[in-house]
Every structure is written in C-alpha cells, then in structure tokens.
C-alpha cells in the first residue's frame, strides 16, 4: 500500500453549496479522532460540479484518487478504510467518464490542486516565476512582443488582441496609468472567472503585475461582482500576502518597478462589464457607457491611459511567459490561439468548469466532455455567450469553437457560458428570457437599446402567450437589426443576438407559436394543457392534494382527470406523478 500524503476538499462556491464545508469538518474531526497526520487541504474548483462534494486523496507517489458526491456518512469509511487501511473505498470512487481526457489546462492549471489561500503553495507550483523573469530579464517592450506572438485575445467576449492593447497603452505618456482587471462576470450561466479567483487568485495578481510592468501602470484595480463574496475574500488575502512578500507595492522583488492593487466591488449592474461603464463605476458614478474614441487606452480612469483585461485573459499571462509564446500558440486555430474556459451547464450530464483548446467542435464538448444530454434526450441547441450570444442548433454541432467560426453562426465565443438545451426547451422562451435580462439591464442611454429591447420583449411575450400575429416575426428581426446598429455599447449591439439566432435557426418554432398556437417543446404555459393518460395512471391520487385549484378528480374508472377549465397549469401534478402518467399536450384545439 502507498501511504496518503494529502487530502483535498473542493471548497469553491459550488462545492460549498453542495455541502463540502460539512464534509471538510467531518474529515477534520475524523482525522483528529484517529490521530493521523495526513494533511487536509481546501482547494478551489476541481471542475466536476456534477460530482460535488469532491474529495481527492493524493498518495505519496502523486497518484490522485477521487471520491464523488461524498456524504457525511461516507467520511468515516474514507478515513478508516483508505487513509488508515490503505484500501480505497471502491463504491464511492469516481469512475473515469471522459471529463478530463480532452481538456488542456492552462488557466485552470492549479485550480482544484492548490490551496488558494496559500502563497507558498502557489510558489511551489511555479507561481511568480514569470514575474521574476519579467522583472529581471525582460524589457516592457519584450513582454508586449511575447504576448503579441502568443496570439492571446481578450477572453471577456470581444476577443481583442491582448498584446496590441498593451502596446497601445504603453505608447501613451505617463506617469499615471491604470490597469484594471475586469471580474464583473455578469452573464447568467457563467462562472469561469469566479472559479479562477476562488481557486487560484495569485495567478490573476501575477498576470496583472506583469501587464502593469509592460505598459508602465502604477496602480491597479480588480473590479469584481459583489455577488462573489468568497472570490473577494480570497483576493483580499492574496493581495495582503503578496504585499507582505514584496510581490506588490514599492520595488517589487527588489526591482525599480512599483505597483499596487485595490479591489472595487461592483454593485450589480450588468452594463458595467463594458469598459467605459466600468470606469464610470470605479469613479463613483452611474455605470453608463460613453462614446469611443477616445479609447480607455488613451483616456480611461480619471482621464489617464487605462488597460482593462478580463480575469481569464490575465490568468493566461504567467503561463505564456513561463512556457513561451510558441508553446501557447501550438493550441488552437489559425486566428484563435490557446485555450478557452467554459462553464458547461443546462441539460447536460456533466455540468462543470472545463478548459479546451480553441477549435474543438461543439459536439465533442457536449458528448465527449459533457457526457451527453440528461436522460439521453436529443440535443436541440447550445446557447453560447449569454445574453450577448446566440443559440447554435444541433445541426451545426460540428462547428469548431473559435472566434471566427462562431461569429459566422451569429453567436459568439463570449465570456464562456455554454448552456446546453434539449428537446424540452422552447427556443422562443429562451429568446424571451435573454431579452428580459438585457431589457432590464439596459442603462437607458441609447433610445434603440432602451425602447427597442422593450418593444422586442413585448412582442416575444405576446408570441409566448399565443397572441402573436404573422407580422411579428419579421418585425422582431427588423427591430433587432436596428437595435444592433444604433446602440453605443456592446450591450445594445449584441442584445438582439439571442432573438436573431433563434429566429434564423428555429423559425418553425416561432411559426408554431404564432400560426398554430402551440409550443412544440411544451413550455409556454398559455399554449399547453395537462392530460392524464388513463392507461398509465395507477390511481394513486398523489396529484389530487397537490393541485392548488382542485382541478383533478376521479375519472370514469380507476384513473384521475384534469379539468382544463379550472387548471392554472402550475405543473405540480406533472412533477409529483411517480408514473409519468401526465402528459403536456398542445392547447391548440381549444384556442379557436
């Protein structure tokens, strides 16, 4: 038997939400009770959110054994059988499922492996080596050239070449320049940046400091969502530790270079992910974007040259410096180099945090890494890029994930949210969902964004309520094109994308809502009804007390029936039926 050298518990937000804190405490108590000296470590997101809480037992030879969906009652067995007895607990082990096989981990190199609150551990994993190299061996110009050569592009959504951005700001006169890390991850369904900040915060600070050196910035800010308290806490600790170790502040690593970082907590406004709105927010004002040019690289925070990069972009930087631009550029496609982190969620078996080389086809992500669709249903579409992105239909599942190819489909790589949709998802409802989001988050400055999105949302709501007219669809597309054309910032310029892509690829579904007054996916309440199948109904009557309006009564035999004139379509009977005897049926025969 190989002795265990370390036990790791994934304690990022999703792990904690799944109960990992309790597992950690139970392990701690059990280890103490057995008086073992095997260290117990908190780590960040391991990535397999679908298997949380996760516990890794690392053997002295480095072999890693993973326990999945660990419950408190399992802890004693893991300690006594495995840690003390040397025999892994077979029935609790994670079975290999292809989740990690096709991933390439650059940004997530340390996530789930190191203690995010320990500067020493980060250093043991090559942390701050890149910064040291930059400060001792490289001129700012050389750093910029290296990043340019790597082909790194902004990972926040727009895909602007990072080296180019740094180069522009480096040419501006100083002395005061600012560097801002954009951690205002606002897309619903995206948690890449949160995971990096929670799992490997020093990596982001190192990337920021290297960038600041390259362009001559004296002060930096991390603008992070207030909804991410754990990320903020870990960043605060990392900044304090880095200052103590001479990695931030005056004369970093005894060089002539000085740079310090402060945290600014966002206050809940999606539009603040846009550069000029973010700047307004740091300055203490409402986050409304302004016209560009001048670009922030010329006149940004307090009128000074400012570079804003997102978390994932910066997390690539130390790796590129350590391994060289060529090593990075070997991954990816002609114009999209390196890897991309995605938050894979929705109706997928293996939801979690993944990192893939650019250019991997959507199909390989969904069925290879993601393990396919829940309950083996059919893939309908993949929503990428959140409210700014679009829906890519299953027929285009072989499209490679890179900036150019996805743009052609009408979607975008975006910041990295990837929501998988199945046959039971209504595409009109999804479009409505995103438009509801952007409409509420519009800052109100541009007329087309403020009023155009509102009119689009009203039209979509009408269609979902079965009151759409034949002209609605063309009008939606026309208005969508105009909102894109006449909005100042990225929010308005991309807000119609979910509508335009669904109208393009799922036109028949819109038409079914409008002309036939049916919702093929069975989602839009106004267009569906519930019916109990007399054959499958076992007359257990579980649904009867569940119904809030007493619409269910004894049928003509040993089964129940739903009175559609009373039913409010809350769906409770449907979810409580243990025999799947309740069907969602179209209401079209009743609407005219």
């Amino acid at each position, binding site marked *: 038997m190989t002795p265990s050298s370390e036990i790791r518990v994934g304690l990022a*937000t*999703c792990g*904690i*939400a*799944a109960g990992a804190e309790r597992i950690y405490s139970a392990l701690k108590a059990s280890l103490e009770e057995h008086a073992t000296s095997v260290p117990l470590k908190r780590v960040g997101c391991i990535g397999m*959110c*679908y298997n*949380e809480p996760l516990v890794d037992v690392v053997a002295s030879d480095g072999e890693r054994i993973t326990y999945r969906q660990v419950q408190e009652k399992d802890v004693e067995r893991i300690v006594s059988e495995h840690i003390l007895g040397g025999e892994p607990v077979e029935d609790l082990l994670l079975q290999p499922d292809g989740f990690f096989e096709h991933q390439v981990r650059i940004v997530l190199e340390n996530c789930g492996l190191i203690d995010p609150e320990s500067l020493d551990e980060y250093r043991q994993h090559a942390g701050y080596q890149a910064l040291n190299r930059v400060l001792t061996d490289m001129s700012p110009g050389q750093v910029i050239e290296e990043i340019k050569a790597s082909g790194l592009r902004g990972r926040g959504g727009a895909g602007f070449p990072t080296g180019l951005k740094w180069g522009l700001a480096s040419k501006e006169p100083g002395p005061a320049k600012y560097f801002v890390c954009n951690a205002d*991850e*606002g*897309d*619903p*369904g*995206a*948690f890449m940046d*949160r995971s990096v900040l929670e799992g490997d915060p020093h990596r982001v600070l190192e990337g920021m400091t290297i960038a600041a050196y390259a362009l001559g910035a004296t002060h930096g800010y991390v603008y992070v969502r*207030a*909804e*991410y*308290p754990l990320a903020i806490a870990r960043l605060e600790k990392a900044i304090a530790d880095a200052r103590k170790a001479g990695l931030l502040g005056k004369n970093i690593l005894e060089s002539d270079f000085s740079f310090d970082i402060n945290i*600014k*907590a*966002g*206050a*809940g*406004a*999606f539009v603040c992910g846009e550069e000029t709105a973010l700047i307004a*927010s*740091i*300055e*203490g*004002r*409402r*986050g409304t974007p302004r016209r560009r040019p001048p670009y922030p690289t010329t006149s940004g925070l307090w009128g000074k040259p400012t570079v804003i990069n997102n978390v994932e972009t910066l997390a690539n930087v130390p790796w590129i410096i350590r391994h060289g631009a060529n090593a990075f550029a070997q991954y990816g496609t002609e114009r999209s180099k390196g890897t991309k982190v995605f*938050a894979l*969620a*929705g*109706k997928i078996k293996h*939801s*979690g945090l993944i990192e893939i080389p650019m250019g991997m086809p959507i199909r390989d992500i969904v069925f290879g890494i993601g393990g396919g669709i829940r309950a083996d249903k059919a893939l309908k579409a993949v*929503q990428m890029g*959140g409210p700014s992105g679009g829906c890519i239909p299953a027929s285009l599942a072989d499209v490679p994930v890179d900036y150019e190819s996805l743009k052609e489909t009408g979607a975008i790589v975006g910041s990295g*949210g990837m*929501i998988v*949709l199945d046959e039971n*998802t209504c595409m009109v409802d*999804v479009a409505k*969902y*995103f438009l509801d*989001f952007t409409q509420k988050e519009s*800052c109100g400055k541009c007329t087309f964004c403020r009023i155009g999105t509102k009119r689009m949302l009203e039209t979509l709501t009408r269609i979902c309520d079965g009151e759409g007219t034949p002209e609605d669809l063309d009008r939606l597309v026309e208005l969508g094109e105009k909102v894109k054309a006449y909005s100042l910032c990225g929010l308005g310029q991309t807000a119609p994308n979910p509508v335009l892509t669904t109208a393009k690829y799922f036109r028949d579904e819109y038409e079914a809502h409008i002309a036939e007054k049916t919702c093929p996916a069975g989602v839009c309440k106004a267009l569906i009804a519930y019916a109990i199948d007399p054959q499958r109904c076992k007359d257990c009557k579980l649904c009867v007390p569940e119904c*809030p309006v007493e619409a269910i009564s004894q049928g003509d035999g040993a089964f129940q029936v739903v009175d559609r004139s009373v039913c409010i379509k*809350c*769906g*409770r009977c449907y*979810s409580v039926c243990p025999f799947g005897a309740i069907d969602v049926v179209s209401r079209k025969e009743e609407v005219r």
Partner: protein
Amino acid sequence: MANLSLHSPNETGAIEDVLLNFPASPASVIPLLQKIQERCGYISETDLTRVSRYSRVPLSSVYAVVTFYSQFRLDRPGKHMIRICQGTACHVLGAGEILDHLKERLEIEEGQTTADGWFTLESVRCLGCCSLAPVIMIGKETFGRLTRKDLDEILAAYREKGKVA
C-alpha cells in the same frame, strides 16, 4: 441642517466610523453605500444625505447611483433574505416554478417582505452554481437542486428557528 451632522444618531445608528474609513471624494460613494448597507441592511434617507455631504457629491447624484445599481435597497429588509437565482441554467431547469411557489407560500411579490418581517424575496441574475440549478440562497446558505417539497421544508425550518429565537 444641524440634525444632519455626522454625529447625530438616526434610525440606522451611527455611521461616522464608516465614513471616516474612506477619503472624502466622489470615488468613495459606492464603497461607502456598500459598507452602510452591509451594516444596516439598507440605505436610509438620512444616510443618503450623510454620504452626499461627506463625499461632496450632490444628493441627486448619490440618489442616481443608489437607484442605478441593483445591489442597493432603500427600505428595511426582512430578517432573512431569500435570493432566488434566475440564471440561464436555473431558468431552463424550472426556476420560474420555484419562484411562483415561493411567492405563493410567502404571500409576497419579488422585492417585498413578509408581513411578519421574517423573509424578503429577491430575484438575482446568477449565483454562479449552475450545476446545482435551480438554486436559492437564504442569507449565506445555498440550497440547490430544489423541488417545491424541499422549499416547504426549508421555509418551515427557518420559521421554526424563529420560534426558538
């Protein structure tokens, strides 16, 4: 004007120590409001005025900031804040029904507080634990993969805690 001085106590208590931690500049407005809300649960009218005077930003501009950002509240919240995630993953996995159920059980709409002052219900855009969808947070505790039945049990447990306390 004297009653608006930094040292006069008001319904949300003294905040001068909060103010003095930040430089008296416009950039302090948002962090100041965040700290005050963290302590008091909301921003009172008096505190708005104090922030305005301290940061030398017109009251109208401070009010503009407070109403722009969704984080800020202008009324006192209930004892327990229920935040229901309306992120994409939660939406496609039935967050709408969870929200309807909560509204019905608590007899309030989004943004409101129950008559007993026990719960405030708020929708949030994404809590970032999409694999656990649908998700709610009560205070700092997260509950995932929710069903209506789970919700009833969770609410009952919180109400029970109230009786003990």
